[in-house]
Each structure stands twice: as structure tokens, then as C-alpha cells.
């Protein structure tokens, strides 16, 4: 018994092997028409690139909005009850630190200052920075990865730890590597001296300014005085408790808003309230605040939609032209006994093939863009796996639309037409 007679899988009454034989023919017809093949691939390449690149830059930008949460790695952020996102500062009383500490579910709780301040450079110009003030004793909320210097030196007078971006941004000549800020250099924050004792790695902030860490008390000295200065209380749950449980207990006991700090996504504490969804995760809450309250998603979303439309326009038009050009050959196949179903499979295979190749090249180009973005630190770029998957689906939808147009045209073509020269 040969392989052909052993076929058991049948699609629409045809043995699957029949399709595999026609696939080779379909691909040869596709690759043989070089101009249209390249045009199709180019259209899908641009569609993929626009969709993936813009969506990734959008995600990168949204990730930057939560940079403080990444740079201050505390499991729980307790803030004023109306605060919805991490870059919003509704100051609290210093006594709120003690109130949070008093909650039975809390292992430790420390004050945190976070605010945008002005730095005066050596040449007299000003730059804005994201100033973070952390507890001097525990150094809770300190940068996770030091490149140079010693974090403990932050306890010395007038000292700060800066991130890599600051070494360049706060330099008198950012284009000259020899002029980069280094340990021991000094500058002024709101006319108060600051001496660099460490350089760390940190995620860039949404506002583009570098991060500077100092102690909580010194941060208050660097900042113009107001009645309430505490931005947040960072805390950790008692051993054996989850962050969600501890946050819920803090909210119940103090009336303050307690967010957990985890990756963007759903959280057991996310609840639907009368005013809409209330997020228990600070990352999620922050990102959604920017999505709802800024034009950023519309701007990027428009480009993504344009990418899709460009893909549809080029792919559908070109593929339809390809089918029209091949109509007399496809009609001849139809007359010779090839069913509409098998011809449709051939067109779908052709469309999927250009879709996969165009998508692959588009993703490759986006990866090149990503490498450049990572190297330069900007533009923001973050590509979770959902983006290429969604883009692949979008490109295949484009291809299926293109194939559908061809299939409709071909199904309307009577095989007898092939006799009319």
C-alpha cells in the first residue's frame, strides 16, 4: 500500500496530499511573478513594521510612566487616597508613616519623597530631575543596581546617587564623554549643594529627566518648603502575608490608598467600583491613567491603524492584481478539473506565504530599530510577546482579506470563459 492510498485525513472530500501537491504549484506561481511578489512582501513588511514598532514605542512610553515604581522597588506604595498614578503627588502628613507602621500586616514602612526638581549645572543652565528621597537608616527604595560608588555613602552630608542618564544630562557638554559627571562632582539642586557619591542603573522617567537619589530629610532640604511633604509610604507585608492582603489591611486601617507594586496586569485586588475599575496594582493604575487622560494612545493607535490600512490597501490591491493577471491560468486549471475549493486553498497558501515572509522581515526591521533604541536609551521601546502575536494575527487577517478578494473573483469566473481568447 503506497502513501497515497493510506491517506485518511480528508478536507472537503479531498485527500490532504492533493493539497500538498498543489501548494508547490501555488508557490511557484507566486514566486515566479517577482514584481508582484516583492510588492506584496513590501506592503506587509511596512504594515508589520508600523504596527509592531509603534505599538512597542507606545508600550515603552507607558512603561516609562511607571519608572518610579521600577526604580523604587518596594512591594507596597501607600499614597493619599485620591492618588491614581505614581507621578501624581498629593502630599501626606509625616505622621502617616507611623500610621502605616502600626498596621499589623506591615513588616516595615518607610517615608518616600518623589518630585521633579531643578538642577543648576556648572555653566549656569538648568535641568529638571526626578528627585527621590529615601529613609537614611534603612535605605529602603534605593536603586537596585549600582555601577560605581557606595550606596552607604548616601548617609554622608549633601550627597546624592545619580543614574547613568544624569552623568550625561548634567554634564557641561553632553556630547563630550570626558565631561560626563563622575563621582565627586558637584552641582546644585535648588541652590543647595549636591555631591555625587554613586552612579546607578535606572529606568528613564516619563518626563525624560534623570533620577537622583538622596535621603528623605535631605530631599526635603532640596525642595521648596510646604506644609506637607511626604509623597508616599513604601512598605512590605509581614512574612506569610501577600502584598495584596497587606495593602487591603492598610487601606482598611488607615483610610489611605495602598497599591501593590507588581508588573502591569490584572491583580486580585482590582475591583469594579461605581466610578469604574479600581486597580490594586500601581503599575496598572498608572498606565490606565495615562491611557484615559492623555492623547498618547490615540496618537499611537492612529499610526497602528494606518499601518493596518496601508497593509490592507497594498496587499489587497496587489494580490487582486496578481489574481487578475493569473486569471486565465487559474481559469484553465478550473476548466481542467480543479475545484474552486482547491484553487481557494492555493490562493490562501500564496497569501499566507507572503504574509509570513512580510511579517518576518517587518519583525526583523523592528528588532533593528529596537537595538538602536536600547543602545541610545530612547525612543522608549518595550515589546511584550502580545505585540508580535497581535501583529502576526493582523497581518494574516490582511492576507486573508486579500485572498478572499481573489477567491471571490475566481469563483465568479466561469471555466467556459477560458475559451474566449
Amino acid at each position, binding site marked *: 500500500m503506497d502513501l497515497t492510498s493510506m491517506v485518511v485525513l480528508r478536507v472537503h472530500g479531498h485527500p490532504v496530499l*492533493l493539497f500538498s*501537491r498543489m501548494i508547490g*504549484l501555488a508557490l*511557484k506561481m507566486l514566486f515566479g511573478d517577482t514584481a508582484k511578489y516583492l510588492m506584496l512582501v513590501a506592503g506587509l513588511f511596512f504594515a508589520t513594521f508600523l504596527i509592531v514598532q509603534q505599538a512597542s514605542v507606545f508600550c515603552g512610553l507607558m512603561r516609562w510612566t511607571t519608572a518610579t515604581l521600577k526604580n523604587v522597588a518596594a512591594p507596597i506604595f501607600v499614597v493619599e487616597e485620591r492618588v491614581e498614578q505614581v507621578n501624581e503627588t498629593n502630599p501626606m502628613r509625616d505622621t502617616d508613616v507611623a500610621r502605616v507602621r502600626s498596621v499589623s500586616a506591615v513588616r516595615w514602612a518607610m517615608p518616600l519623597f518623589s518630585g521633579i526638581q531643578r538642577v543648576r549645572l556648572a555653566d549656569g543652565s538648568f535641568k529638571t530631575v526626578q528627585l527621590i528621597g529615601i529613609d537614611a537608616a534603612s535605605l529602603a527604595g534605593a536603586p537596585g543596581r549600582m555601577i560605581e560608588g557606595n550606596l552607604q555613602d548616601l548617609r554622608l552630608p549633601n550627597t546624592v546617587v545619580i543614574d547613568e542618564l544624569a552623568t550625561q544630562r548634567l554634564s557641561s557638554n553632553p556630547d563630550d564623554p570626558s565631561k560626563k559627571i563622575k563621582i565627586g562632582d558637584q552641582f546644585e539642586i535648588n541652590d543647595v549643594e549636591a555631591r555625587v557619591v554613586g552612579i546607578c542603573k535606572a529606568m528613564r522617567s516619563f518626563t525624560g529627566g534623570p533620577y537622583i537619589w538622596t535621603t528623605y530629610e535631605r530631599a526635603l532640604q532640596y525642595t521648596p518648603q510646604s506644609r506637607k511633604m511626604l509623597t508616599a509610604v513604601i512598605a512590605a507585608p509581614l512574612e506569610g502575608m501577600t502584598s495584596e492582603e497587606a495593602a487591603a489591611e492598610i487601606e482598611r486601617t488607615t483610610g489611605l490608598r495602598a497599591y501593590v507594586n507588581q508588573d502591569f496586569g490584572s491583580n486580585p485586588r482590582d475591583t469594579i467600583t461605581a466610578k469604574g475599575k479600581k486597580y490594586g496594582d500601581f503599575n496598572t493604575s498608572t498606565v490606565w491613567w495615562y491611557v484615559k487622560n492623555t492623547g498618547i494612545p490615540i496618537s499611537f493607535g492612529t499610526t497602528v491603524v494606518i499601518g493596518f490600512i496601508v497593509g490592507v490597501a497594498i496587499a489587497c490591491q496587489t494580490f487582486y492584481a496578481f489574481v487578475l493577471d493569473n486569471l486565465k491560468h487559474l481559469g484553465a486549471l478550473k476548466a481542467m*478539473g480543479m475545484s474552486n475549493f482547491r484553487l481557494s486553498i492555493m490562493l490562501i497558501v500564496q497569501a499566507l506565504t507572503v504574509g509570513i515572509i512580510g511579517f518576518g522581515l517587518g519583525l526583523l526591521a523592528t528588532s533593528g530599530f529596537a537595538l538602536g533604541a536600547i543602545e541610545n536609551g530612547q525612543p522608549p521601546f518595550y515589546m511584550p510577546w502580545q505585540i508580535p502575536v497581535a501583529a502576526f494575527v493582523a497581518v494574516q487577517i490582511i492576507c486573508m482579506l486579500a485572498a478572499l478578494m481573489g477567491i471571490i473573483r475566481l469563483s465568479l469566473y466561469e471555466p467556459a470563459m477560458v*475559451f474566449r481568447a
Partner: protein
Amino acid sequence: MSETNGQLVVDVRRVEKNFGDGPDKIHVLKQVSLQARTGEIMMLVGPSGCGKTTLLSAIAGTLKVESGEIIVFGNALQSMSGGALTRFRAKNIGFIFQQFNLIPTINIAENVGVPLLIQGISTSQALKRSREILEKVGLGNRWKDRPTKLSGGQQQRVAIARALVHEPPLVICDEPTAALDSQNGEIVMDLFRQVARASDRAVIIVTHDNRIFSYADRIARMDDGEIIDVKEQPQQIAHFEHEHAIES
């Protein structure tokens, strides 16, 4: 020359076909009846628009008719479903088109093998069989070439090879020599004669080309959707050929 005692393979009975509706309706075939037998070359001739290509399409099972019967190898085409008709064509009919309709992006052996692939024969078997039949039409050494590299006559020989590769009992040809010079036309018609004689096969040819009338066993003359006459004897064909030459 004539083989009128062959088996009846095509029996067209009082077929009617219209195109369009209402005032634009065109009556293309009017009560047409015709038979074709194995071992013969039947030619359908007549002026443009007389309905000969429509009749050929109907016999090939690529066009539905309004009334009448078309019986091919004992199968009434009008009662067959679309899928059954498609499978019937794939197995029983070889097609030769006026413009050859060879796929330009694949080589000629692959082109010839298409009817076998449609029937589910493996690609390697199809190519083997294609090369054998290309040898028979004198193109064995050109099997790797694409159709665009061949002359019109050579392309038509490839088309003939494609029509015969799956050994169909009925071969349908639409103006097979219209795009050929007289020398290539003769080569192609010699091939047809071999094809029709060599096996139990019928060949139906629609043509305008009076140079090839002498190759026919029977000639059915059509005009305005009707069969005017069918000439069967060689003498009659010679007379018809002469008459047609004067008319044209």
C-alpha cells in the same frame, strides 16, 4: 480516413443556450444536435459568433445549457452536480486552448504535469510522465524551459502534451492552429491525427482555419446557433474545403 463505426462518446441532443435576459437576450444555440465517436477528429467550423465555442464549452462541461441533453461517455452532464462535473472533466477531458494557457512561471514539464497533479498523482510521477510525453511531441530536451522561451508552435505542442498526459478519452481543442504559421499548424495537426487514431479517443476541434480541414474525419458547419450540415466523407470534406476557401 473516416472511422464512423467508432463508439459514440458525445451525444448532443436538441441543446438550447441563451446569454443575457429580456431584450438583450441572445439565442446562441438553437436545437443543436451532434455526435462524436472514438477514433475520429470532428471539426466545428463556422463564422465568428455562430456558437461553436459555446457548443464546445457545453460539451466540455464548463457551461450549463438551458435545455436539451449532452451525454458524454454515457453521462448526462446537465444532471451532474458541480463537484461531479469538475471531477468528470479532470478525468475524461483534455483541453487545448487557443492561447495555450500555459503557466509562465513554471517549466514545461511542470505545466504538462498539472492534470496529473489535479488527479492526485505524486509530483515525481507526474514529472516522469510529463517528460515521457514531451519526448513524444519532440520537446523532450526542453523540459526545463519555461513556456515563454518556446515558439508558438512549440507552446502548442506543450499544450497538446498537457491535454494528453492523463490519457483522456475526449480532447477538446479551441482554435489550436490560430496562433501558428502553416508549418507549425501542420506539425500540430499531424499530432492530433496520431492522437485520434492511436487509441479509443475522440478529438473535437473548433477552428476557422481552412488549412487544416483536410485533417478532419467529419466537419460540422455552424451558423447562427445551428448546425447547418455535417460532412463525413473525405470527398465531401475536400469539396467543403474548396467551398469554404471560396467563401472566405
